[in-house]
């Protein structure tokens, strides 16, 4: 099987993320399916940043330890990643700064020769890599032209110098896939929400959700989305609910700490029956934790956040393709049922880059809503059998639209009458019953790997990638619930049919999905947990799974 792994490393500020993206595009353009993992500490300058780009013939969402290439912009890259080298690993390095075996690129001399600025040094390294990997020059030209925003010609000249001086030391054979879009999880979530009709995105910066804010802000005119960055997360969610009241589809994005501040507004969305999409991108907690590292410790928090009882949708996509698909669904379902809908992601997915298949992306759709017929008087909380009251928005003729955070009657007027409170509580819960039925029509639990296997890995979110990798090696079934609320118990029970050993794999310390599944009588036999901020590596997971399979 064709498979290639490239690590590029340097100081924070060296542009590792964009250099990594170019390497990913080179591999994309020679026929590989891509996954890019970006690792950086929470600082602006000076720390060690690295990206690992994996190209494979099958879909990927993880990186093995062993590398085919190391592209070293500094010595630290050589030092820190010694354990990832094999006798075959090709090292391409900046000869001005690094002492190493391998191919040294005289970066400064090339830059001086071409009269190019220091920032173009990465192009020399990438040129050297392309030669070492045997990537044809026209591919480099095509990728640079498409993906370097400024100074393409000079970058190409710099790259070509290094390319011509280098040697084809580790040729990478061509794959068979046509070049496909490479999206980060956050970009995929943003585009999914746009497809679901997003009108406004409101967010306060917080890693690892910020790149979604940046993406939608950059393309707001193109998408027709108002993007607002208010004073704090409390204002974020309240503004988003203001948009929803005005009839505009809104979304918010944050991480655990910011979501703590949103819980009061979340409960308001539940009580006032205002639709809202919330993107919660998990990082390592508790508290400030590890801002730029991953985790899956907010499932139970998101399940239970906010006072009171009201239905909510939670979906946890496992890669960019799923993120695109489910983010659109989250938006449509939020509006259909007038409820909060969560897209639960994590640093690995949010900031990881994946190949997506454009053919598998559905058309833009905006589902029809139960809209008020116009017969007076309008009752915002009309007690329909479905629990879903027809919508009206301010400006509609003769509709007096009253939404309320207090317990209220069908007209939205505050009421403390016992029968009214019970009636409206039941109405909201009936929406939950409808939501459960609705979500049964979606593929809420995926089965992959070897579906006949009696040993299964139970995972959720981005760990899907690493679990699939191991499953194909060991012949295991992979079961991944994507819908986490309302919990797809029936689908999950079907998925584990014939399983004699169920192994939960999660990136938290208390096995939160296993706990949730346990409430429905599905109790994993083993739990493999990682909670140091780093995603499972297939190497580690392979060992741990072999241990528990004995």
């Amino acid at each position, binding site marked *: 099987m064709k498979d290639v792994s490239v690590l590029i490393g340097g100081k924070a500020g060296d542009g590792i993320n964009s250099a990594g993206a170019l390497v990913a595009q080179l591999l994309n353009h020679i026929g590989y399916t891509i996954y890019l993992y970006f690792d950086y500490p929470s600082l602006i300058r000076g720390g060690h940043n690295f990206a690992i780009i994996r190209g494979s013939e099958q879909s990927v969402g993880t990186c093995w330890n062993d590398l085919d290439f190391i592209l070293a912009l500094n010595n630290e890259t050589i030092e820190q990643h010694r354990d990832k080298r094999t006798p075959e690993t090709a090292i391409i390095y900046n000869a001005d700064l690094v002492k190493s075996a391998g191919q040294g690129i005289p970066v400064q001399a090339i830059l001086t020769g071409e009269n190019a600025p220091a920032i173009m040094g990465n192009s020399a390294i990438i040129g050297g890599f392309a030669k070492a990997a045997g990537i044809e020059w026209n591919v480099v030209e095509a990728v640079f032209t498409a993906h370097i925003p400024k100074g393409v010609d000079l970058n190409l000249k710099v790259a070509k110098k290094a390319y011509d001086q280098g040697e084809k030391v580790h040729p990478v054979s061509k794959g068979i896939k046509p070049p496909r879009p490479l999206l980060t999880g956050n*970009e995929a979530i943003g585009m999914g929400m746009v497809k679901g009709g997003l009108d406004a995105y409101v967010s306060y910066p917080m890693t690892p959700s910020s790149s979604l804010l940046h993406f939608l802000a950059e393309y707001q005119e193109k998408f027709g989305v108002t993007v607002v960055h208010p004073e704090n997360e409390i204002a974020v969610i309240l503004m988003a609910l203001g948009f929803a009241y005005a009839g505009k589809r809104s979304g918010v994005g944050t991480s655990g700490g910011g979501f703590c501040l949103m819980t009061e507004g979340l409960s308001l969305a539940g009580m006032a029956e205002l639709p809202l999409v919330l993107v919660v991108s998990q990082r390592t907690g508790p508290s400030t934790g590890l801002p730029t590292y991953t985790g899956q410790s907010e499932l139970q928090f998101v399940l239970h956040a906010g006072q009171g009882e009201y239905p909510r949708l939670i979906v946890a996509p496992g890669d960019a393709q799923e993120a695109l698909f489910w983010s659109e669904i989250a938006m449509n379902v939020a509006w259909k049922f007038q409820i909060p809908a969560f897209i639960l992601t994590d640093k690995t997915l949010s900031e990881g880059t994946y190949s997506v298949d454009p053919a598998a992306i559905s058309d833009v759709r905006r589902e029809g809503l139960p809209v008020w017929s116009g017969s007076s008087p309008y009752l915002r909380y009309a007690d329909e059998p479905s629990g879903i009251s027809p919508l009206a928005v301010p400006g509609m003729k003769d509709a007096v639209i009253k939404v309320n955070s207090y317990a209220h009657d069908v007209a939205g007027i505050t009421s403390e009458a016992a029968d009214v409170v019970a009636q409206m509580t039941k109405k909201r819960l009936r929406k939950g019953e409808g939501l459960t039925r609705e979500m049964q029509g979606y593929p809420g639990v995926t089965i992959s790997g070897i579906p006949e296997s009696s040993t299964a890995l139970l995972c959720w979110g981005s760990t899907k990638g690493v679990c699939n990798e191991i499953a194909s090696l060991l012949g295991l079934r992979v079961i991944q619930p994507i819908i986490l609320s309302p919990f797809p118990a029936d689908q999950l029970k079907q998925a584990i049919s014939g399983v004699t050993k169920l192994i939960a794999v999660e990136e938290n310390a208390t096995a939160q999905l296993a706990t949730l599944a346990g409430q429905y009588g599905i109790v994993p036999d083993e739990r493999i947990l990682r909670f140091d901020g780093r995603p499972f590596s297939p190497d580690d997971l392979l060992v741990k799974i072999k241990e528990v399979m004995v």
Partner: protein
Amino acid sequence: MTGRQLITDAQNTWCPGCGNFSIQHTLKNVLTEMEQEGKSLDDVVLVSGIGCHAKIADYLNINSFYALHGRAIPVATGIKLGNPKLTVICCTGDGDSYAEGLDHLIFAAKRNIDITVIIHNNRVYGLTTGQYTPTSPLGFKGKSTPSGTAEYPFNPLELMLASGATWIARGYTKKMDLLKKLVVEGIAHRGFSFIDVLQICATFFPAADYYTPRVYELSDHDPTDFESACIKSREWDYNSDARIALGTFFKRSLPCFDDKMAVHETEAKDRKQAVEELLLMRT
């Protein structure tokens, strides 16, 4: 809807003599006149916080968003951004917008979002039965400060001047003609309008005997002059004994946040094309 009955059937639970009646009556009159002038009340939204003042959302028969304590202003901001054609009036209390949600008040002024904020400033928490607020005088004896507060009140007018509000006024619930004039002017102002209304709390801070002899209406004051607005706003510091000016302290014209943030809405087919273009850019 024309000739709308503007008061709902909801049972009114304000105390007899409560200043909220005056504000509600004022708003009802203002809305009636708006409708007589051809403005559809379907395009008006009232947003309230939580507290005695906020019951006005139940009592006035117009579009309303009965929000959370301190959080009326971000809701109002979202509604205005969502549909800039709407007239958004935001009733909040002093506990609401001077304590719990002060950040939102400052940022709304800073942004110059075109909403009208009416602060029902009774200088006490009424609904939670009598605790001090950020505008209670020094030494105020409330249930949480039985020996008197140890902190000075702040001056909301000065705060709004410092925050960039483009229209600043003070009213008094016992001067209803002026109050109505101010509300009309505030709604007409394009940008953030702020009215601090000295409101009687009949039960926990019945201060009419203090206010009535001290209030006077601003005259010979140029509200476009920031310096004199500062001087006038400092005349009474919500604590010491001084004359209390009512009227428009400051106004100026600046571009509105809702105008600057407006994004051209796209049709579904344009979105589809935008998504496809983006996918191509990432290939």
